[in-house]
């Protein structure tokens, strides 16, 4: 039976060697903790390595889990950069003292003011507009106006929207609180919950599919999902995208809610210079133009171009409320969802 032990030995030894070699980054490498799991992000990282010789080590997980990890690892963290797909979470990381000021005029000036931290600890890389999509057949555009209007009883049993555990919905809710006050916002959540065609479930894509299938008439989703479905490898996805149209709400008032993907430099890193290089790279016109073509998110840089598809969706007015304000309201938004019974 010692044989079993001997046979096991290579495995155990291999594990140990792998364990000690994997995570120690070299001086000319960066470690990025990111929420974004897109294949396109990997292409960008490879491109950066080819251009600069700086390798990027990536840890992908839920943004809040990564905050916990950064906190527990403390000053021993290998992370140099922290990236999220939600402005609220990013500003919470900054408030928790996990990020340091980026300290680069060039970076900060390249994006509009509402897409960066007033204290310079994070900056947006992409913008993500959360809009209403509607059935081409069953909804007249004249029926649509604002997010607030979705609380109207005429929408009973017609709305598809995902769970309140989703950060896109949470930050949408924070803008409703910021615009209309807590009391109105909570009433809104309860009324929208009553109007849902089904209890919240699935992803933004599933909401679009629900419209295409005839289950719901309108849905609240991020614009790029429409683009992703339209260009999907799966024919069913393309049919779903063809069944809906996009509507930018609140154009008469504060504008459509825009969330961000953003990035910050982790406090305590000794590689802030390299980290800034990567942020500059992400905000360069070349990369920004690629983003709008590949993921259909709106670029954050002032000088970047929209993709043809985005041009087709049309110009819109964005709600320019500050992300740090939204981050502070996030917990309140979740409590409201809970009280309103929005699962």
């Amino acid at each position, binding site marked *: 039976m010692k044989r079993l032990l001997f046979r096991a030995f290579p495995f155990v030894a291999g594990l140990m060697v792998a364990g000690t070699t*994997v995570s120690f980054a070299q001086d000319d490498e960066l470690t990025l903790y990111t929420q974004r799991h897109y294949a396109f992000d990997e292409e960008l990282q490879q491109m950066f390595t080819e251009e600069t010789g700086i390798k990027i080590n990536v840890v992908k997980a839920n943004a809040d889990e990564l905050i916990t990890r950064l906190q527990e690892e403390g000053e021993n963290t290998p992370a140099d950069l922290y990236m999220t797909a939600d402005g609220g979470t990013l500003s919470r990381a900054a408030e928790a003292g996990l990020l340091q000021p980026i300290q680069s005029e060039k970076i900060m000036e390249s994006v509009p003011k509402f897409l960066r931290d007033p204290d310079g600890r994070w900056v947006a890389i992409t913008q993500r507009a959360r809009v209403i999509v509607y059935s081409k057949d069953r909804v007249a555009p004249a029926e649509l106006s604002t997010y607030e209007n979705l609380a109207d009883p005429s929408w009973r049993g017609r709305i598809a929207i995902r769970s309140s555990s989703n950060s896109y919905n949470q930050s949408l809710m924070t803008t409703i609180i910021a615009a209309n006050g807590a009391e109105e916002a909570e009433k809104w959540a309860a009324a929208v919950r009553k109007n849902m065609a089904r209890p919240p479930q699935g992803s933004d894509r599933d909401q679009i599919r629900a419209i295409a299938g005839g289950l719901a008439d309108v849905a609240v989703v991020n614009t790029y999902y429409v683009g992703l479905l339209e260009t999907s490898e799966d024919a069913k996805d393309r049919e779903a995208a063809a069944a809906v149209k996009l509507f930018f709400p609140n154009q008469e008032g504060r504008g459509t809610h825009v969330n961000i993907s953003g990035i910050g430099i982790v406090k305590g890193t000794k590689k802030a210079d390299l980290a800034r290089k990567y942020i500059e790279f992400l905000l360069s016109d070349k990369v920004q133009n690629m983003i709008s073509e590949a993921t259909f998110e709106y670029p954050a840089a002032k000088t970047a171009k929209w993709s043809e598809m985005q041009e087709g969706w049309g110009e819109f007015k964005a709600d320019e409320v500050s992300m740090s304000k939204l981050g502070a309201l996030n917990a309140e938004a979740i409590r409201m969802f809970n009280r309103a019974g929005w699962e």
Partner: protein
Amino acid sequence: MAITGTAEAPTSPEAQLPPRSTRKAWLRWPTDRWGFGVAVVAGLILLPLIAVLLYLGRESVEWDHLVSTVLGGYLKNTLILVLAVTATVLLMAIPPAWIVTNYDFPGRWLFSWALVLPLAIPTYVAAFVFYQGPEAAIPLLIWIRTNISIDAFFVAELVIRYGLLIVMLAAVLYPYVYLACRAAFSQQSRTVIEAARCLGDSPRKVFFGVALPMARPAIAAGTALVIMEVINDYGAVHFFGVPTLTEGIFRTWFNMGDKVSALRLAGIVMLAVAVLLVVEQLLRGRARYVEAEASSVPLVRTKLPRGRGMFAAMVCLVPLSIGFLYPVTRLVMWAWANLTSDAGVPIRAEALGRGLLLAAGTATAVTLIAAIFMYAVRLRTSATRSSLGRVAGLGYATPGAVIAVGVLVAVGAFDRLDLPWVPIISGTLFAIAFAYMVRFFAIPLQFTRAGMDRLGKPLEEASRLLGKSPMATFLKIDLPLLRGPLIAAGMLLFVDILKELPLTLILRPANFETLATTAFSLASEARLQACAVPSLVIVIAGGIGLVVMNRWMSAPSSHE
């Protein structure tokens, strides 16, 4: 570090124990190395759990809010799922186990091992396959809405979604009960069954009156595992929009940032599972008596006539189809579509190799540690040791994310000690392998305990009387005789680690992808076709592991 440290203590040559009777080992600081080893391993495993408990004392921000809003819903959903899935699992598992053990019919041999395969399918993979179901039901729902009423529509939607989730969970989890039942049925004293038959009992009466009551402990053990899996599931319930306590933990912790309340929820989960384990233990307590009487009369299977044989095959085919054939067919179709398109293979060979190596290495190491640990626990009758032996399995009752955070805290604190010559462990494979050990230690523990129960003490005592040391006895007697259960445990562990998601996501080192994380990120991009490829590889690797496990479980315990 954790792993080597714990393995060292028991492997050092160690012999002279004082005679058992002269010493009371109750609650005494371990004085021999075996006892020390037990304490070290149990301590290491408990460390992350204790680290988590330390948070409980702090002030919670959201607890009252949770109690007044969502807690009731979480509890209700959890309870519904546990009860309904358990009932469905019993229906899916017990009849095939009975039929396969006692009767001959077309396909029996195939079913006897294929029925285990659904365990290879992670619940989150099954979820994205089965979620096509509610979509297919949309026309029916629309019909109900237009022709009956909108309220009937809401009820129908709920019934379809919950029903599908329940059937799906049951269909991938029933093998736990199936395996336990089959083992129990085939070990049951043939003489008792024969006696019942001779006394003129119908097969039905033999089953309900004799076989089923005798298998109760095994059913309880299997069901306990199913319930723990249901309570701990995160992927499937999230997908189907049925928030349970575990999803509540994630929401409270990560969305609301309230660790303390999240850990109180985790406390409820752990308490529920602890109660479950006690009940299971009570039921199992009586089993020893039954097993001790197991006779060696060889098992003779009755050949079923044609019509009944077909029926028997159908009984086995239904759970197998829902839990394995259907999802695998869908995965194969999607994977085929992906591989024949120009989208490119979505798995990197490096990720594949590393993930498999990590799972295999950790499974081997943890199984051996568990065997040595269990041997040490049983070396002397002591309340402390046997309760440490129980407690070491507690990680199985704890959600993966909670263990991950416990490990982060414990390992982070260790790193801050800044010991000379000790590298930083945070964010390495050590941390993640350690977390797997904490999470899954119960599996090899259970297998080893059951195996040692069956062996009894005679051989070991003979070896000790002949002057062999405990270590020599372990290596020469116990380890070879336990080969079957150990390989079976190692394989199940391998499959579980391969499927593991939440813990891996939180703890993994940079650039580290496993099959599970690859499948997850593709699924969250809703790229079904691409996602099917890594999912299918998990299912195939897991399936092979399970077939090997099955062979060693049904093999006689000591053939050479």
